């Protein structure tokens, strides 16, 4: 028995975060359906589930120290720096978002825990996605994660916009999944590999020039499926509607988790699978990056809805992160830093939004934060911090991430990219300062009333804001981590 287990690399530790999440979700589901238990019990279950997930991620570090980069379950699951970084990041995203999601579920008409269950399930899927070595496994993870997100978007059943968002997300998301799996099948048909490592070995064996055109097409289609998830232009059309329509309490999670995991997968595909054909898809990625930055900047400048603005700003930021990943190994490390910093700011902003806008509402006009500073000093100051962080002003992590990213791009001699990205920061200052102006400066007769902020929300927002400032002042530790992520590919 043990011999078989060793042969296929059977190791439960390596998928333990996923198992913990699924188990928690199932127990919670069981409690919700069968026993009329009180909130406290469910809260304890959820909390212990999240904590044990983080503990399982910790266990994986132990396994990594022991085995190094290694494959499990007959080359289905991979344990490498990317997957560990992804696990930590997704675990943190869950930790930071569980609070607003928990609060919002009590506002549901049915007062059930389905939002939590969906969140846990989708986290488990994305955990699996960043762990997978095999493209089919990757697809399974992606689908488990995404389907729960489609449901989350439409959880406010009485809101038409929420329904619309869910349907739109579902239809376009399925289309992207189709494109992704079609690309995978093309790669398999023409190249007979599904593992990300085997692909690189195969290319190294036959030489980059003799890779069939079908395979290249398959690779591009696979990437398109993933680019859809990070909302890079021209695959961004779902983002604004979904951000706007989905219940505000969930958007922070939906936006960050899909982006984080898709970026990590893209980074691994670029650095591992395409290492022997590094410049093959340059023009494709250049096209995507430039289009994302330009379209995102232009459309973000004219938005009146804050959530739409954040969606388009997300398109710009995706362009930034992608530009580093596709440039090379140091660029990837800079992008990982950028990704982390961006996710922190994004979650922070959406936690604030969910307090101001209400957890379940959809529309969030920019005038709804008028005079925020008058009655809500704390929210206004932290909101400004996150916005300035996104704009990339010095003393925030946004500046450091932009600086090291552009430095690496310049070192790769991508002058066109650098100049376009720099110009987009100027546009960024325009549309990130607009909400700040309305929240703090614009005179108003009817300022936003004072919001009751729970102590846990205080703690959450202030720790996210502190991280934004901290990594702007003392970025060395996170930069070292981001360099550790790519160390085996240097």
């Amino acid at each position, binding site marked *: 028995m043990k011999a078989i287990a060793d042969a296929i690399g059977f190791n439960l530790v390596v998928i333990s975060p996923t198992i913990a999440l699924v188990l928690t979700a199932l127990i919670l589901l069981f409690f919700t359906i069968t026993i009329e238990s009180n909130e406290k019990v469910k809260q304890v279950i959820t909390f212990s589930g999240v904590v044990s997930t983080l503990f399982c991620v910790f266990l994986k570090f132990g396994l990594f120290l022991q085995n190094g980069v290694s494959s499990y379950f007959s080359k289905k699951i991979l344990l490498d720096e990317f997957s560990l970084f992804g696990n930590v990041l997704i675990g943190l995203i869950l930790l930071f978002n569980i609070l607003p999601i928990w609060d919002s579920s009590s506002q549901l008409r049915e007062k059930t825990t389905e939002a939590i269950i969906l969140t846990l399930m989708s986290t488990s899927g994305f955990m699996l996605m960043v762990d997978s070595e095999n493209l089919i496994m990757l697809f399974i993870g992606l689908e488990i994660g995404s389907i729960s997100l489609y449901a989350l978007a439409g959880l406010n059943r009485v809101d038409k916009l929420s329904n619309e968002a869910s349907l739109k997300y579902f239809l376009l998301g399925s289309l992207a999944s189709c494109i992704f799996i079609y690309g995978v099948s093309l790669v398999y048909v023409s190249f007979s590999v599904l593992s990300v490592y085997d692909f690189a070995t195969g290319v190294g064996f036959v030489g980059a020039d003799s890779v069939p055109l079908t395979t290249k097409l398959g690779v591009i289609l696979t990437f398109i499926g993933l680019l859809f998830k990070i909302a890079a232009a021209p695959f961004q059309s779902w983002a604004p509607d979904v951000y706007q329509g989905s219940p505000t309490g969930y958007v922070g999670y939906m936006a960050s988790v899909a982006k984080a995991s898709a970026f990590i997968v893209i980074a691994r595909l670029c650095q591992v699978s395409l290492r022997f054909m590094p410049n093959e898809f340059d023009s494709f990625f250049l096209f995507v990056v430039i289009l994302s930055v330009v379209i995102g900047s232009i459309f973000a400048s004219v938005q009146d809805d804050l959530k739409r603005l954040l969606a388009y700003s997300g398109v710009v930021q995706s362009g930034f992160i992608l530009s580093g990943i596709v440039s090379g190994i140091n660029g990837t490390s800079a992008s990982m830093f950028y990704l982390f910093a961006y996710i922190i700011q994004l979650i922070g902003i959406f936690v604030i939004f969910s307090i101001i806008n209400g957890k379940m509402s959809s529309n969030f006009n920019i005038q709804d934060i008028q005079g925020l500073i008058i009655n809500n000093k704390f929210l206004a100051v932290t909101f400004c911090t996150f916005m*300035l962080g996104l704009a990339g*002003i*010095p*003393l925030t992590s946004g*500046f*450091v991430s932009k*600086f*090291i990213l*552009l*430095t690496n791009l*310049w*070192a790769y001699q991508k002058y066109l990219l*650098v*100049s376009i990205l*720099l*110009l987009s*920061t*100027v546009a960024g*200052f*325009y549309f990130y*300062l607009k909400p700040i*102006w309305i929240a*703090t*400066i614009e005179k108003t007769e009817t300022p936003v009333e004072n919001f009751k902020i729970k102590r846990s929300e205080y703690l959450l927002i202030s720790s996210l804001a502190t991280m934004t400032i901290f990594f702007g002042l*003392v*970025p*060395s530790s996170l*930069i*070292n981590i981001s*360099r550790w992520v790519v160390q085996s590919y240097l």
Partner: protein
Amino acid sequence: MISLAYSFILLPIVNSIFIFLVPKRRGELFRPLSIFLSLIPLGLCLYMFINQDLKTSFVVVDSISWITAYGIDLIIGFSGMSFLLISLNCLLVLLSILSVNQDHGSSKGFLGSIMLLQGSVNGVFLAGDLISLFIFFEALLIPMYFLMGIWGGENKRYATIKFILYTVFGSIFILAGTIYTGVLSFQSSGAFALDFDSIANISMTSNQSKVLFLLFTFGFLIKVPLFPLHTWLPDAHVEAPTAGSILLAGVLLKVGAYGILRVSIPFFTEGFLEYQFLIAFLSVFGIIYGAIVAIVQIDIKKLIAYSSISHMGFVMLGISAGRYLSLEGAVIQMINHGITSGALFMLVGFLYDRRHTRRISDFGGLKKSMPLYAGIFLFTSFASIGLPGLNGFVGEFMILMGSFPSFKILSSIAAFGVVLAAIYMLWAYQRIFNGQLNNDENAVLTDLNSKELVAVGPLLILMLFIGVYPSFVESYIVNDVSIIYDAINSLSGGLE
């Protein structure tokens, strides 16, 4: 020494936090408290003037490792020139807080923002590497954004956004230059060392030097501002509150010129020699253009704003000429302009607080109702025009004298700027203060009170002091200027 240098950045920040912590109901405390708090940095300046040898070129005081993986350190240091500018900054901050009206004086946000601005401007002058220079250069946008946005005039939104976007547009060039320098530094030494010593040792080709010079200088010139990059300045000045205008004209414009003197010329001298004439040409164009446009202004504040463009044109002419005398004149003129235009904006602010208008045609005959004010305004105008015996003369004379050998025609034309300055300042004086007191509202205006006199007095003393004893200022900047001059001289093979 280390703690002293840090305190110029940290003290203002601590001060502003202190102000923010005072409860809102004790509104009457804000102004006295902030005057007291801003006396501390100024006191430190005085202490250093007395106890330290400040007549040095740039001395590194301390360095903190920032990004260890890239080998980037943040370095802090000072020189005689930067120290003079820091003192000017601390003085102007104190005086502008002294001069604020009741409205602004009772708002802790306003006073706190001024102090944050003070800290970040000091940071620019103390920065010993390109990254910290850039960090402080952009960080000063945040307090300025709130100062102009919240307490600005009617059209503040347009002016603020224009100011921010212009500056950010300039700063992306500086960022690009910083990154390029870092990459070059990496190629030659294996680390992204961006401190001034390492940059000086980078071996770069002539083309690289030219590109880098253009990148940095373009970014700094927007801040100076040089014609035709100046269009944000009149809007910003008109809409900013008085204290904001004082600091904007007094120190923020100097940040640009300081950057050119500290970074662009010494490190990228080949680029400087290539584009020297272009900058000189634009400066002279700006001198004449600013002066002519100032003549036709109907708003006093806008008039002074355009006069700033003209005066900063002189500074840039002196810098671009690259002679020892003209460089020294440029630095002295930077300080002079900070003092004079600060005083002018303060005086206009006093008038605006009384009359709530800045249109020249609304005034006339003010000499009768406000004799003291008229005298002080005339004195300051003379300093601004460049009357011998007052500070403006020293700088402009040195600049014109020094740049004549380099650009004979251009500096001859620039000399007309002084004549035009006399026209716009004296004509404005005539329309405001002389003539009949036709308007009843003007007849009842009260003269300056003692509080306002205290605010403007130190600047008047400095105008006279620098006018009769310029070698005091000169002695502090000699070493800085020699280094810049040597860099130019060694490449151009001796201009003189």
